[in-house]
């Protein structure tokens, strides 16, 4: 019997205080102004303070912390990409995630259960081979598995050889994981605030004053602020905010939808994904099945949900797990994702000297929250992007030097 809990409930003194201080008034000037209070902006604030001692920082968030894609994603964490540059980058993020609860002193419910991606065609098997070899080369845990091994990893999958899209082989990524998405943002925010970083919620950036190739001031609905450096980490609104600085981006914004079922007893340990069926499924620590798929078919800045997507996600999920047919859906929602042509992010320098980009995170940026924060902080502190971010520079589009991750990203996140 948890007596401690009962005593706590009946007691008058609740030792838990608020995680973040109340919103202060603006200071006239900050060393760094961060636009966007999602995981990326907050992680950048934390690492600026922790790694570089830069604490005169404010985070401007138009809504509430983690209310954007950080609190809407399906929390797939993995590093099984296809180019060595990407694998190296995302591996650094998975490594940071492994210790994150401890580092932040904040439980992010991190759970490394492996991710199984399914192939229903020979073409997919070929790309899996390549991803497995690249992954091993860079030092991630990844291997091809056959039908027998798939049965061992996820016994409840429908392995019928006469199915519409039979399962031929799999890509087994032991480093695959999941965690509580908004806790990641809250953990970073709480620790950043302890270093003195200011969190300004309900503060919308409405304009950027550019003078002689630099951002002179940031306009908000609560007045102007100045910053030595300004960084945008606004996901679906990347093009809109960049346009305030006169910057055009190769980004198109699409809604991405997901949904959860009612909770059931734990039966599905790994994360399961199939790009052939445009769906992926995992079971949350609460027992709900989290189901996601591909982006909406046309560009939109609205987070409405559609019946079409619900139907196609359900149909495809039932092809993998027919016995789920009687489960009920609890929620469906959407986030606005900033899609790049090569399914890789845009990070680092912008055409405006003291303005830095952390954009183009599309449907796959939650897993990169720690590494993006760490490396964007380094970029700002050194006023130069480190070599690991070089493949993701905006200028790659001028030279057609793309980092194509479409095959390793679409419908897998």
């Amino acid at each position: 019997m948890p007596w401690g809990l009962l005593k706590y409930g009946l007691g008058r003194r609740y030792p838990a205080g608020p995680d973040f201080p109340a919103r202060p008034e603006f200071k006239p000037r900050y060393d760094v102004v961060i636009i966007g209070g999602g995981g990326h902006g907050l992680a950048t604030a934390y690492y600026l303070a922790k790694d570089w001692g830069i604490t005169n920082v404010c985070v401007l968030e138009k809504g509430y912390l983690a209310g954007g894609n950080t609190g809407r994603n399906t929390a797939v964490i993995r590093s099984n990409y296809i180019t060595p540059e990407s694998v190296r980058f995302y591996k650094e993020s998975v490594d940071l995630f492994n210790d994150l609860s401890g580092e932040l002193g904040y439980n992010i419910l991190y759970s490394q259960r492996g991710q199984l991606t399914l192939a229903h065609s020979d073409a997919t098997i070929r790309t899996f081979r390549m991803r497995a070899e690249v992954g091993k080369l860079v030092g991630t845990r990844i291997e091809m598995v056959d039908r027998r091994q798939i049965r061992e990893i996820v016994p409840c999958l429908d392995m019928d050889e006469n199915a519409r899209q039979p399962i031929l082989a799999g890509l087994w990524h032991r480093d695959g994981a999941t965690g509580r998405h908004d806790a990641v943002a809250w953990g970073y925010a709480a620790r950043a605030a302890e270093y003195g970083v200011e969190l300004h919620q309900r503060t919308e950036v409405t304009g950027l004053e550019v003078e002689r190739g630099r951002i002179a001031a940031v306009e908000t609905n609560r007045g102007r602020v100045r910053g030595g450096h300004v960084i945008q980490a606004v996901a679906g609104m990347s093009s809109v905010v960049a346009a305030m600085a006169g910057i055009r981006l190769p980004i198109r914004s699409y809604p991405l939808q997901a949904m959860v079922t009612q909770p059931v007893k734990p039966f599905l340990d790994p994360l399961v994904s199939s790009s052939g069926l445009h769906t992926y499924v995992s079971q949350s620590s609460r027992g709900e099945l989290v189901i996601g798929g591909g982006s909406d078919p046309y560009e939109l800045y609205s987070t409405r949900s559609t019946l079409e997507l619900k139907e196609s996600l359900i149909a495809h999920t039932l092809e993998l797990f027919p016995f789920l047919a009687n489960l009920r859906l609890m929620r469906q929602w959407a986030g606005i994702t900033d899609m790049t042509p090569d399914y890789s992010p845009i990070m680092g320098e912008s055409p405006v000297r003291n303005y830095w980009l952390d954009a183009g995170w599309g449907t796959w940026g939650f897993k990169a929250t720690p590494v993006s924060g760490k490396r964007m902080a380094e970029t700002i502190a050194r006023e130069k992007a480190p070599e690991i971010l070089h493949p993701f520079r905006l200028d790659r589009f001028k030279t057609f030097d793309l980092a194509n991750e479409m095959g390793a990203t679409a419908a897998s996140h």
Partner: protein
Amino acid sequence: MKIMPCPLNGPRNISEFACSGEVAEMPEPNRTGDEDWADFIWMSNNTAGVVREWWCHVPTNYWFIAERDTVTDEILKTYPAGKVFTARRDFQGRDEGP
């Protein structure tokens, strides 16, 4: 399901259509430097508001133009491409094959 009013086929389910992005002026290929060409290929206005876009009714392969609000998800107007592109445009050097 959302309905798209097709200028050729009348109102149809939007799942029958494919969107091909904003109507953009194509620069003259032979007089455009690499950087401007890359700009034309990759960059996007990604407007939050009313846009003019290419759409195709896939079963009939009919291309037309739609005006759409990307914030409210409303289709405001659709019309045949001939309303905008009234004359044939030839690019210089077009016939110089390899």
